[in-house]
């Protein structure tokens, strides 16, 4: 663990990643304290300051109803992070369990589980999530469900492939010989060996979940106003290009910064934990 930390801190790129994520997470957690207008995350209207370009104290300008864009972007990070974490908390255990069972048991469980996984994987991810959001009312909770439904198959595929290799390893055979239960072998013996790959993927995915969620709301299928959301800000602002460029450029950069941070860190982890897809 300390080795990992040391290696991360030795590369300027991963330090940048840590700093970016630190900025995003801390500002989101303490949004009420760090933003100049925390009340602007809700339904506030200031007719005196509609659609203003960046200037003090609105360093990123104001939106069409006069709310401070910087404050709204920081609050949007909060929603994005909650969404990302919840999706992974739901998707990873589901996908991992399915992958483990399919890979270790083989036979008909493998056929059923992996073909189901294939069905989900053969609809382009965004299209699947869109179709689901089309059914559900666009709320934060349903957004999480839609993204979770499209996310778990990637973990079952990943774990399945690892298990196929691990199954033949000596320690598994040894456990089988001494008569350990299948559950024990799957979850106690094989699963820990999947952790490095899973953790790396989770770090990268936290960024990608934020990205997909913003894409959904860009299409009008995500979190609804007045809740601030980066994707819908870009979509709404895009109508006012090129005059009111700040409405799109800043939320767009905000997405870029967050996802870039997670990517830098995930990349570093991948190098350290030494696994390629």
């Amino acid at each position: 663990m300390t080795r990992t930390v040391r290696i991360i801190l030795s590369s300027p790129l991963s330090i940048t990643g840590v700093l970016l994520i630190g900025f995003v997470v801390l500002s989101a957690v303490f949004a009420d304290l760090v933003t100049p207008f925390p009340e602007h995350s809700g339904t506030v209207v200031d007719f005196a300051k509609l659609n203003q370009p960046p200037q003090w104290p609105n360093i990123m300008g104001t939106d069409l109803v006069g709310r401070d864009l910087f404050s709204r972007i920081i609050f949007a990070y909060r929603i994005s992070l909650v969404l990302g974490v919840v999706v992974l908390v739901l998707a990873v255990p589901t996908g991992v369990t399915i992958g483990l069972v399919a890979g270790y048991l083989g036979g008909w469980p493998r056929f059923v589980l992996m073909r189901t996984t294939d069905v989900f994987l053969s609809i382009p991810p965004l299209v699947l999530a869109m179709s689901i959001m089309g059914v559900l009312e666009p709320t934060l909770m349903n957004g999480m469900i839609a993204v979770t439904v499209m996310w778990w198959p990637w973990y079952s595929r990943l774990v399945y492939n690892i298990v196929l290799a691990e199954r033949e390893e000596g320690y598994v055979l040894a456990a089988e010989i001494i008569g350990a239960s299948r559950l024990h072998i799957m979850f106690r013996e094989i699963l820990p060996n999947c952790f490095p790959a899973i953790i790396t993927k989770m770090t990268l995915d936290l960024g990608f979940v934020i990205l997909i969620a913003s894409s959904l709301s860009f299409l009008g299928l995500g979190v609804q106003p007045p809740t601030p959301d980066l994707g819908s800000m870009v979509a709404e602002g895009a109508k006012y290009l090129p005059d009111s460029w700040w409405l799109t450029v800043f939320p767009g950069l905000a997405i870029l910064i967050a996802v870039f941070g997670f990517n830098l860190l995930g990349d570093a982890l991948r190098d350290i934990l030494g696994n390629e897809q």
Partner: protein
Amino acid sequence: MKAVLGLLAGRLAISTLVLAGVSVLIFGIARVIPGNPARIALGPNATKEQVAKLAAELHLDEPIWIQYGHFVRDLSRGELGISLYTNRPVTTDIAQFLPATLELVLIAGILMIGIGLPLGMVAAKYRGGFVDNLVRIVSLLGVSAPSFVWAVILMLLFAFYLPLFPIAGRIDTEFAIEHVTGFLLVDSLIAGEFRAFGNAMWHLFLPAFALSLSGIGQAARLTRANMVETYEKPYIEMARSYGFPAWRIARRYAFKPSLIPSLTIIGLDFAAMLGNAFLVEAIFAWPGLSRYGVAVILRKDLNAIVGTVLIISAAFLIANLIVDLLIALLNPRIRYARSAR
């Protein structure tokens, strides 16, 4: 070759099975959509009888498995029902809108390979150095923003501030190209209109580039990783010790083996681009199937949703099939490994 054909047959069978699964899944999703599509389509002034009549025509009053039966029967005749959004058969809509999307995605795919692979090669050659880090940052940036953000940024820079590229549409209105295939690049060549071809290409560039950026990043990173791995193989060391020129080593010995894993990811990225086209088409007013897809989802147009998703999934499966075939052709070992499994 025989083995390759066998592989193809097997993959086709599985793909068909998967596609059937997709149809059940998406049909189920589309049918539980709340609200009465007949009412939405007919508008507020329609009488209750009119709504009931349309609902009956759409079989909305029957249980879902019977509806699915109707759907399969129609599908076997090559019909996907009527879209309530355009009031036309869904197949007509798809035939009209799909080429625009495919053209966009194909060009984006070419950009992804044409830019991503060389970037990865350069990075691998100078690994650990400045160029390597630069490529790494660039490719990470590429994957770190959704394609709609890139679309907006590119449009702002190269269409608004520097008006180098057009901002909307597939071709300038002055070119009246006869629609034979629906692919403007092909149609303009058929008509022998090279200026129209150039014009269509010019319209394609920004949206295709925005769409390909994340793919470029992926392809570059992957190629680099695979080449670095191959560079450490003994036969490369040997070639180096014989004093072969560096670029020859890179091209002849390191690149080819690294191509195979890259191809797999390219197949996946192609799929992602089919989805992401939804985002780019919206910004560039691209009259493709993805824009149609968004519109019909928002309008709960059941037949059109099912049709669009099925077609996109089929395109995705076919793309992966092609990639698998290419891999099998490039490297027989993979074929054996697969049949062993």
